[in-house]
């Protein structure tokens, strides 16, 4: 089995988010970057578990500059066998999907994993686009995946329930909570990661149809209005008359 795991680099969850003076670009100063948690905990770990059980290779792929290599090495330390970095700024999900699509087309992966979304642009777009570029089935928000030969049985979260699906490989799957447990890379993994292959690939031509023109911070909350714990009628009145939510 050949597994591909798409990994993205994002600001840490607890990072303070700020922008340049005219609001046109994210300000990376002082921000710690991490592997997108859903890519790491769910997609990558499940791919590694399946490979360990069934044999095969796990390739981690990232579209990004050379500075992303720390994140890529972490994927290798967690258990990926090889890595590919497409040497370009990942300036939109459409761009990332077309780059990974161009690379994956020639490689015949059996199963391609991604996280359910990234915690920076929260788009949930790349998996669906990538599946279309490769003309493969796509299952989003998978919380369980078992392989049986060429068939995958997948559980996926839907509004107010769970669906159990069957899909023939090759397929693209985006992973959510439940898929696997976070793995902390051990010393041996970290040592081995240093000598695992990390291939750098040049990007292909691709046009963007949508991009961010401006960032802003959400309007500040007016501040909390405290209500006396003995006066719950007053809270209900405020929610009805002032906030108009009940």
């Amino acid at each position: 089995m050949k597994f591909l795991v798409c990994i993205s680099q994002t600001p840490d969850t607890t990072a303070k988010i700020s922008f340049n003076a005219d609001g046109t670009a994210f300000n990376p100063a002082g921000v710690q970057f991490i592997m997108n948690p859903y890519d790491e905990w769910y997609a990558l770990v499940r791919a590694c578990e399946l490979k360990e059980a069934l044999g095969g290779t796990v390739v981690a792929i990232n579209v990004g500059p050379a500075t992303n290599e720390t994140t890529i090495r972490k994927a290798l330390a967690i258990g990926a066998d090889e890595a590919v970095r497409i040497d370009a700024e990942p300036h939109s999900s459409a761009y990332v999907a077309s780059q990974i699509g161009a690379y994956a087309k020639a490689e015949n992966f059996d199963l391609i994993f991604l996280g359910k979304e990234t915690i920076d642009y929260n788009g949930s777009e790349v998996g669906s686009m990538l599946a279309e570029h490769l003309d493969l089935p796509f299952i989003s928000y998978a919380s369980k995946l078992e392989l049986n030969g060429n068939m995958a049985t997948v559980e996926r979260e839907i509004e107010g329930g769970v669906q159990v699906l069957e899909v023939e490989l090759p397929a693209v799957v985006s992973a959510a909570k439940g898929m696997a447990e976070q793995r902390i890379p051990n010393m041996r993994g970290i040592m081995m990661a240093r000598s695992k292959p990390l291939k750098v690939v040049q990007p292909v031509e691709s046009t963007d149809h949508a991009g961010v023109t401006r960032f802003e911070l959400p309007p500040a909350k007016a501040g909390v209005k405290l209500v006396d714990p003995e006066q719950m009628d007053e809270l209900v009145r405020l929610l009805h008359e002032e906030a108009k939510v009940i």
Partner: protein
Amino acid sequence: MVLIYAESPNGQLKKAALEAVTYGKHVADMLGVECAAITLGNNVTDAGSLGKYGAARVFNVNSSNLNDLDSQVTAAVLANAAKNLNASVIVLSHTSTGKSIAGRLAVRLDAGLVSGVNALPESNGDTLLVKKSVFSGKAIATYAINSPVKVLSLMGNALRPEATGAPVSVETLDIAIPAGKVRVKETKTIDGRVPLPEAEVVVSAGRGMKDPSNWGIVEELAEALDATTACSRPVADSNWRPHHEHVGQTGIAIRPNLYIAIGISGAIQHLAGVNNSKVIVVINKDTEAPFFKAADYGVVGDLFDVVPRLTEAVRKFKAST
């Protein structure tokens, strides 16, 4: 034309579909073009009622092969419908189904996509400018879409469905349906309340509840408010509550009109899933709880006293209206 895909799992139009049509109608009016909706499947009930929400025309692709919503099949059918109808903007719901389709549709139509939009766009020549929440609720980005065809997916609860029009008759669209590769074996639904992502009022509780046997007061408040219940991560992790209730960064992200947080400290990973709620009420005995900084209304007190009192007050209010 603005074409809205109105989701109808099991044949029933979703609330998200009514929101999407309402949104699409506003976009169509702004652009001065026709607003149309499309439903998929052979079991759709009352598709014509989408006329009430602003669709001048409603189309259906009538085939049981579409009931399972395999994204590969659905996207192919929707892309062909959009081409046949000459749609310039396609609106989807940002749901489990919409998210699977949106990217595929954008690739097929060579269209710019912005997913999870939460406000109406502005137009600037041939460009649409539209906002969405980014960095897990910590910022807002304005996107520009420049392609002739544009795809938007609408965040749940971003606007209220507006039923100001009249039903229309449903036109059947004849579109070839490719064979799918995904088979639905089973769908397990959670009975009872409105699904969490669609709920307008959410009552959520955390570790401050001390023990799962104490949840009766949370259920009662939710009942009184006709709300859906949610919980923090440690509560789900300890199996005090079912996993589908878990909100936050690792769980699901929601944006109800009212989020009531009971005995939840308000850690950043929790806030990431709820900070887009329109109004937040926090009940916590610790004045220093970080959640108060993100709250609109706060009650400092012991939840075991405050929650039953609030339930009483809500019941009194509901009885009087």
